């Protein structure tokens, strides 16, 4: 049994707690025990401290890492922004003497010290490395056979690959998330914009129109090229964009189709049989139908195998 510190960030615990639930249910059942990192703050997100002062960013971020170091665990996080920020911080502090010194000085003000003993994992990477597609497949109750998934890994889980503990062999044509979805027995075809940014993040707050422009390009690539039954994301920000942003485009009449969106651990939890009212309850694009299809009798895995 692996024990990891669950770093929640902001969006997941405050806006999308069903994603938090899906992680709390699915991971321990697959052998990753989760402990809380009490007092963890915003990572801090790219648009905040990193855009104002580099040493302060690194200190607040390093503080979050020390919470895991105190408990002797590695960090696992579901938000790509958090993953990028924490992994970047770890890399910068450990490879640059000047930054390391500054961070230790600032942390000393709050009686903390950065040790560098905790690794930072994205939940997809942790599932891939510590559980693996085979074990996931053995533990699902419902199969997604003959369903098509369009994957959206999310930029920060792909680049910069150098700083990541686990990395895709080719981040421009990602396979880790593909294999994790194939472990649920779905088809995961390639679409041309597979590695493209969804537009959420700083871009959306700066210019909603341009942000939705990137989203539209992605959605159209998914719809026209592979006509997926659902979109599965590896990032909570991508979730907000591909789900909520999709609704905005629909309301404006810019797209006329609907593709339900899941965060990976939500879909995993549903396939394992957990309650959708807990693990997949918050959405702008309706998911009731597809959830009912997934958790239906005829999709029981044992029946199919017989």
């Amino acid at each position, binding site marked *: 049994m692996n024990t990891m510190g669950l770093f929640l960030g902001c969006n997941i615990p*405050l806006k999308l*707690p069903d994603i*938090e639930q899906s992680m709390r249910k699915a991971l321990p059942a697959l052998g990753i025990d989760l402990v809380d990192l009490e007092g963890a703050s915003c990572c801090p997100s790219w648009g905040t401290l990193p*855009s104002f002062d580099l040493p302060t960013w690194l200190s607040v971020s390093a503080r979050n890492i020390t919470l895991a170091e105190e408990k002797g665990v590695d960090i696992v996080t579901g938000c790509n922004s958090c993953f990028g920020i924490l992994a970047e911080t770890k890399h910068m502090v450990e490879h640059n003497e000047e930054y390391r010194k500054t961070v230790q000085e600032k942390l000393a003000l709050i009686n903390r010290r950065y040790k560098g003993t905790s690794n930072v994992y994205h939940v997809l990477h942790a599932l891939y490395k510590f559980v693996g597609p085979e074990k996931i497949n053995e533990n699902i109750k419902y199969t997604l056979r003959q369903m098509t998934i369009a994957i959206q890994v999310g930029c920060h889980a792909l680049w*910069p690959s150098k700083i990541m503990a686990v990395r895709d062999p080719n981040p421009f044509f990602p396979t880790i998330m593909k294999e994790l979805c194939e472990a649920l027995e779905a088809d995961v075809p390639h679409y041309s914009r597979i590695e493209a940014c969804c537009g959420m993040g700083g871009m959306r707050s*700066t210019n909603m129109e341009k942000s939705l422009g*990137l989203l539209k390009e992605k959605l159209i690539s998914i719809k026209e090229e592979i006509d997926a039954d659902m979109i599965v994301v590896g990032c909570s920000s991508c979730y907000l964009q591909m789900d909520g942003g999709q609704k905005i485009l629909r309301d404006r009449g810019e797209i006329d189709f609907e593709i339900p969106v899941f965060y990976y651990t939500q879909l995993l939890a549903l396939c394992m049989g957990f309650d959708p009212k807990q693990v997949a309850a918050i959405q702008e694009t309706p998911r009731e139908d597809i959830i009912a299809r997934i958790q239906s009798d005829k999709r029981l895995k044992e029946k199919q195998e017989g």
Partner: protein
Amino acid sequence: MYEGVIVLNEKDRKQAIETIVRLGGEGVVRCIQCGACESICPMALAGFTLNPKKLIRLIQTGHLEEMIEDSSTWACQACNRCVEICPRNVKPFEVVFAYRRYQAMELAFSTSAVQSQMNLFEKGHAVYTEAYKETRQKVGLPPDPPTAASYPEAVKEIQTLIENSPIMELGLF
């Protein structure tokens, strides 16, 4: 002075580069303007006026003030695709962020950036909504998340870190 001409001078160039290097964008001196970063940058693809390549060239030619009101730098997602493919180890995203820090210190940032910053200072979270307790209970979780939102000591620690930084000069909190 011709209307359509920019006069290059070394003094401006040195000052612009020194500023950006000091703020964390030391790769700016290495860029040879190949264009690879711009060809895949979400900012460029979405049609913003600035992107890493353009910003770097502006800095390399001594511009620092001229684009300070351009909010497109705040559209950088920090996706790092530019870092992944840059042949000169410029780390273009770090240059964009260094310029953002320059804009921030001159108070040239968007209101949403301010709001997130203030949330972070007051609540420990950049994204904050009052409705979280209800939403959490709806999905079967305890109403108080184990994050800084529920631990005032944690917020105090964050505030201490921020208070001991140049950010205080902005008078946001």
